[in-house]
């Protein structure tokens, strides 16, 4: 009697475990179906789940790409042309380089968000004397950039493995200054909300030298576009709202970001074109169409706000960026 009872109990436990495992089995068999389908022409080089994101390095048609999300297998964060590693594959990285029009010879560069290391590597090649500090919280991303994307740290090209907010606060305490700041931490599926706020941008602003320029890769779609635009306007006043011609990217450029927009020097068409002309040959290997970008930028200067100015700015008190993106 007793043993019978335990065997039925065991059976119950087994069926229960089976039931619990069922969704997992479904998932496994499903992913077995999906993986080959998306992997057509793509070779997965490396896959890893870090504390902050899932990392996928894959190669297809001569491009080595870094993905931070498994959800949309097509949206890569960073790609490298294997045969021509200098070429900037993504339009947003090329657009970021347009910041050089306003400070053609940066000496102290701060970059938030490493990705594949495209930007720090290019800037280090272009300005070997400049001190570059790239802030990246995820050690796994640092390893991947070094292992697969040829990122090499050096005295002038350093990675600081830290939260960018903590970095900015500490740098301010140490009275550090930068003349070229790139904000590009908003990759993958999760947005670090404390790096979207007015307070963070104010901390970034106080890190700028008088001539310092801020270049931010920001959200171009969803209601977050409105919220983020208003937040930048709160801190920096007027800014250049550079949009990709065919992609959904939006880069915010603030020349002389340390001072109020009324006090900034006005930007003349001739000056900006002359600068583009000078930069064109050095940027050519990176496929940065700097002359075209200069024309685009000039058109954007003084353009009226094309976002809803009534949407509230993001602050440390109110920053539900991840929720807003899906609104």
């Amino acid at each position: 009697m007793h043993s019978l009872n335990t065997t039925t109990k065991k059976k119950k436990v087994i069926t229960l475990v089976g039931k619990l495992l069922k969704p997992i089995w479904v998932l496994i068999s499903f992913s077995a179906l999906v993986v080959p389908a998306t992997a057509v022409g793509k070779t997965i080089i490396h896959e890893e789940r870090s504390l902050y994101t899932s990392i996928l390095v894959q190669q297809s048609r001569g491009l080595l790409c870094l993905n931070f999300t498994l959800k949309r297998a097509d949206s890569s964060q960073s790609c490298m042309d294997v045969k021509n590693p200098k070429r900037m594959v993504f339009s947003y990285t090329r657009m970021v380089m347009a910041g050089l029009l306003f400070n053609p010879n940066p000496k102290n560069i701060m970059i938030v968000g490493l990705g594949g290391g495209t930007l720090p590597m290019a800037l280090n090649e272009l300005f070997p004397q400049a001190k570059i500090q790239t802030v990246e919280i995820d050690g796994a991303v640092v390893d991947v950039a070094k292992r697969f994307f040829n990122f090499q740290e050096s005295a002038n090209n350093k990675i600081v493995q830290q939260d960018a907010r903590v970095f900015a606060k500490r740098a301010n305490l140490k009275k550090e200054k930068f003349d070229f700041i790139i904000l590009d931490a908003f990759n993958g599926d999760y947005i670090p909300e404390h790096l979207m706020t007015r307070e963070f941008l104010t901390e970034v602003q106080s890190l700028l030298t008088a001539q310092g320029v801020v270049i931010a890769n920001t959200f171009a779609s969803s209601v977050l576009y409105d919220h983020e635009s208003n937040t930048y306007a709160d801190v920096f006043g007027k800014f250049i709202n550079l949009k990709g011609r065919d992609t959904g990217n939006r880069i915010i450029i603030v020349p002389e970001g340390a001072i109020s927009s009324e006090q900034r020097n006005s930007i003349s068409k001739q000056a900006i074109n002359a600068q583009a002309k000078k930069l064109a040959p050095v940027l050519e290997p990176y496929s940065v169409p700097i002359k075209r970008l200069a024309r685009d930028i000039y058109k954007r200067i003084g353009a009226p706000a094309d976002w809803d100015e009534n949407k509230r700015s993001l602050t440390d008190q109110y920053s539900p960026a991840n929720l807003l993106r899906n609104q």
Partner: protein
Amino acid sequence: MILIIHLLAFCGGFIIMSFELLGGRILAPYFGSGVYVWGSIITIFMLSLAIGYLLGGRLSVKNPTPRKFAGIFAASAIFLYPMILYAQPVMEFIFLHIEDPRYGSLTTAAFLFMIPTIILGMISPYSVRLLVDNVEESGKVAGALYFTSTLGSAIGTLMTSFYLVLWFEVDSIITILTLILLGIALLAWFLAPGQQAQSANTSTAE
């Protein structure tokens, strides 16, 4: 009476988790939102709740009354609300003195969240004491109260992370939580006037 105690336990659970989630928002500007920040917060909350359970249990031994129970809520409100004022200077101070964001966030979490959470932790054992009539039913009563308070925690987590942070500022949410605590303290005070948890007393008298 049973309903009121359950309502209070529910609100206690709701507020603990809502407060814990806001903790992450409060610390992020100084210590980031890395996994260690959540580690610090959860550690401090667990530790505080542990102490709160112990103290609440002790407190429930001597003359437990619904009015004293209401007092726990009022006390937690009194210690919760001022956080709006001192969170900033406390974080500023700790940020300057502790370089490592892990220990910085742990210390800050201790200073900011510990006292209100200890008091909130006292709710559970005290509510069990108020509702237990006899030994046979004690497990059932405790189970039911854990159910309500943990359900409250689940809903507090959901509401805060899905909606409250989308609708309100952090300080406003803390104000709302404080008002809820004061509101239910008053409710308990007036609806269950000073009487002792008599049934339990009679059973001990027997």
